[in-house]
């Protein structure tokens, strides 16, 4: 879906940058925590779980905003392969933002771990205890985390390409600037 706006709406931009910080932190926390046995391990795990749930909630809100407000159209002169990559990356990123927390939650459920958020708030278990389910989800969570990071690197490379090489205004559609969107 596209719109005549030249920029994403302010709530969409806010969510984008907030989630960019959350997701990048999440990926670093994830690989960091499984590589240490120091007390940092517990701190990182204790952040990882509630942050994952926060990302899930934010991603669902963001998806709703995306469906409601749409997105500015891509430059007309953008080559077809780049257009396709842009559309595909959006689908992939939304799929990862929503599925990764659910897989993590399911993985903990299948392993019979309590899912504890800040302040001792517990989430219900969403899957039965099962070694095979846990294994499947654990491998999915692990592999998809690296895929997620790779897609983010491509996303960053692509948007810098738009900003620095093509200078076609695509970066400005999501820029964190507080300037007014003239078409609104």
């Amino acid at each position, binding site marked *: 879906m596209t719109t005549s706006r030249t920029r994403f709406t302010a709530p969409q931009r806010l969510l984008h940058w907030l989630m960019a910080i959350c997701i990048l932190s999440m990926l670093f926390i994830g690989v960091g925590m499984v590589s240490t046995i120091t007390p940092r391990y517990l701190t990182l795990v204790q952040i990882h779980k509630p942050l994952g749930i926060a990302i899930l909630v934010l991603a669902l809100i963001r998806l709703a905003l995306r469906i409601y407000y749409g997105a500015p159209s891509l430059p007309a002169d953008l080559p077809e392969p780049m257009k396709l990559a842009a559309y595909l990356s959006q689908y992939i990123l939304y799929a990862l933002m929503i599925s990764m927390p659910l897989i993590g939650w399911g993985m903990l459920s299948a392993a019979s771990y309590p899912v504890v958020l800040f302040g001792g708030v517990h989430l219900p278990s969403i899957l039965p205890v099962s*070694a095979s389910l846990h294994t499947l989800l654990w491998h999915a969570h692990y592999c998809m985390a690296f895929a997620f990071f790779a897609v983010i690197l491509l996303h960053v490379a692509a948007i810098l390409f738009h900003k620095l090489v093509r200078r076609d*205004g695509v970066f400005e559609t999501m820029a964190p600037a507080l300037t007014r969107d003239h078409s609104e």
Partner: protein
Amino acid sequence: MPQSPSSRHLPLARLAIIAVVVGLVAVAFVYTAGWLSPHRLTPAKLVATLAPPGGPALGHRRNHAKGICFTGTFDANGNGSALSRAQVFVPGQYPVVGRFNLATADPNAADAMVRVRGLGIRITPPNGQEWRSAMIDAPIFPVSTPQGFYELQTAAGSKDPEAMKKFIASHPEFLTFLGWAKGAPWTSSYAEERYNSLNSFLFIDGSGTKRITRWSLIPAAQPVSITPNELAKRGPDFLEQEITQRVAAGPQRWSLVVTVANPGDPTADPNKAWPADRRSVEVGTLTVRQIEPEADGPCRDINYDPTVLPAGITTSDDPFPAARSAAYSRSYNSRTAEASSYPRTPTGAKQ
């Protein structure tokens, strides 16, 4: 979009900027993952040192691999509420799933070959705030730090005949443990053992006051000592047979005693016992009511991660629970992925 004059610069330089930005983020990620730090003690390295020369027993816990499940109850008497606001201390009876075990990486080890015995426990009060604990019968831990534990395992598995000597020279605290291991009497029953948390934890009471504690399960059964030779004669799996018969004949009980540290006590070092006069509070009774083989038992797929704690209990300055949690998780992920190597039938338990 108006073109600025700078866009006439060579795009090569701009492409290089993109490559540098992306490359730096990627390097930071790889560094965080530990791939640039071969000396970092990772859960994978710690767990790998536990494996016997022939490799780990697939499908089994990487340590404390030999064990048997039990179910039962924990009856809180209410005294614990003076120390912690956790629901498990509110008077009442809460279900327990536990596991008696031997501290060995070999699930088929003969009982008389394993000095340290353990007990894992999960208490589930109605609010779902579980308390998991994995305790052992030694009164102190062999070493003072997780790094020391890694070095102990490395030395124990080393082909160098001097390895243990060198290890002890750099970890003299191990001698205290060795004194217990060599001198303390053995028993012929899991039911006659006292199980100790060894690690310290923080208890938080209803008013927010924090106290550092350790806890022990003290058996109601009178310990009867036996020599390892006598135990060996009774068979390699005598402990499991004995506890099965014993519990079938009648429930077995332990009282749970929480000990509070005084200021200055060695709360971060499980190799150091606290003086015997410390305040201790009997908070309830563990009753073991039924024994079930591990292969298809309720404890099999539980990770007795000592950091699964209810609100009202948290970790202290003791570095072990974090290290144990990290390593147990690694062990759990490995063994659940190998479940097919450990059939879920009682007959498949012993190959």
